[in-house]
């Protein structure tokens, strides 16, 4: 697939906002930390929402996307996201256990919806695994916890250390989950071949023409077109920045706001690489029909 920056930004920004909300709710933070945290979580979710609009050909019709919640995970996400944002706002204004718990449920539901958008497509084998949802959730929580630690170091230093410790634990789990999915996807065998694509039972089939000399939607949307080195670089970037580098910074200064903020930014950069790679790695079976231009 060709990674769309709108979707890469949306899933990573919203994930961080969701993680931040869960961290502050779980710690039962209050006062300035809670208000600032909810404001930042809303800003992250809002920025993600804004980014997601750039994915649409007709953003002015986006309201229609709430219609098919019975069958479409995308539609479910479109409903849960604004509901969660409203709950984040409400919890920031009048914190309460019931309201916060409701927000947490919406938060987890949003992780599930976002993950299922990808995991529900049977022939994108790289995504068709529970690890997709687990990783979206854990990676979002990890970056949210790092953000919470940075924020706490600034506004409520007593909470900085527990947040930092939680960020390390959840970050390590997220890292393991991501490595597990990398290992799984490296061993995948594509179910579809050129033989099943055109229905000719022969092991040696090669495309001569794809029906157009220029590119088409099919060549632009489903191929990232980057050299192998770029994809490999993205994988090494995610392996270095999703956990090891921010963990080193957290360990170096578990109470220091600048170091924790740097850890969050570094981890977020790693998550951008992670999400880019998530899309670039997925091989759509339609690509079998677009192997060579002429």
């Amino acid at each position, binding site marked *: *697939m060709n990674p769309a920056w709108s979707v890469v930004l949306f899933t990573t920004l919203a994930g961080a906002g969701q993680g931040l909300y869960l961290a502050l709710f779980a710690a039962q933070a209050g006062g300035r930390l809670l208000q600032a945290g909810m404001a930042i979580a809303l800003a992250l979710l809002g920025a993600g929402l804004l980014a997601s609009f750039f*994915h*649409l*050909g*007709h*953003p002015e*019709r*986006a309201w*229609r*996307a*709430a*219609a*098919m919640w019975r*069958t*479409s*995970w*995308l*539609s479910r996400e*479109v409903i849960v996201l604004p509901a969660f944002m409203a709950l984040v706002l409400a919890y920031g204004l009048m914190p309460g256990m019931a309201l916060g718990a409701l927000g947490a449920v919406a938060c987890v539901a949003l992780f599930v919806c976002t993950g299922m*958008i990808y995991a*529900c*497509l*049977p*022939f*994108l084998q790289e995504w068709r695994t529970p690890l997709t949802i687990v990783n979206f959730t854990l990676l979002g929580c990890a970056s949210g916890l790092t953000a919470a630690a940075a924020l706490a170091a600034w506004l409520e230093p007593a909470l900085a250390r527990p947040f930092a410790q939680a960020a390390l634990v959840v970050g390590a789990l997220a890292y393991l989950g991501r490595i597990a999915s990398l290992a799984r996807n490296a061993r995948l065998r594509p*179910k*579809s071949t*050129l033989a*099943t*694509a*055109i*229905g*000719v039972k*022969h092991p*040696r*089939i*090669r*495309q*001569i*023409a*794809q*029906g*157009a*000399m*220029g*590119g*088409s*939607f*099919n060549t632009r*949307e*489903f191929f990232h077109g980057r050299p192998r080195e770029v994809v490999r670089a993205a994988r090494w970037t995610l392996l270095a920045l999703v956990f090891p580098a921010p963990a080193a910074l957290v360990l170096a200064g578990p109470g220091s706001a600048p170091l924790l903020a740097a850890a969050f930014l570094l981890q977020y950069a790693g998550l951008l690489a992670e999400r880019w790679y998530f899309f670039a790695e997925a091989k*759509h*079976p*339609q*690509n079998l*029909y*677009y192997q060579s231009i002429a």
Partner: protein
Amino acid sequence: MTTKQLALVIDLNVCVGCHACVTSCKGWNNAGEAGPLTDQNPYGADPSGTFFNRVQTFEVGEFPKTETVHFPKSCLHCEDPPCVPVCPTGASYKRAEDGIVLVDYDKCIGCKYCSWACPYGAREIDESQKVMKKCTLCVDRIYDQKLPEAERKPACVLACPTSARLFGDIHDPESEASRAIREQGGYALMPEWGTQPANHYLPRRKTEKHLHADELVRHDNPLKVDGKLPRPDAGEPALDDVTSW
């Protein structure tokens, strides 16, 4: 299974890869009720455009034992279309009355999710109108009472010079399309995903003459001495091998 399911049956044994179906499709759907079907930079250096139908060419085997397969590819109007349930707005739908999978261009938000959910790459976004488009089986022509009945078929079917494209209801066992699938080994693409495509393809078939050893021997000439038969008189009927002396 009792309701109608319109579909194309494409005979790969007959297709010569002339692209007449592509141009007629583009022509009809660019100018028809659902048009335009836009192109970008069509006469420039990097042309691109939206098509419902493309003819691709594959080479099977290894030189010198190769065979060229021309492969027309369009929406297969799956009986269980994976592109429909994922649509968040309901713009993508499968018609109950005839099984055609369609997009309501006025409801489509251009999120492209349905194209991700199609393993065949049958959907293409219209880069000018920013909505998803796909083969409609010429729904704006096949029911048009103003047309003579013989012309109430998809444009590609009418254009095909070799009659490689059959159109019909594959749930009616007596339709031309059903009979072709049944009697000529019609198959579906990528059956591994369970999408049950309505469109079928007929395989390449080789007509080979098998000569068995006994067919090379003339059993009616037991002496194996062709040409040594006594010459018949001029008045005799000269039916070699039939009359005997």
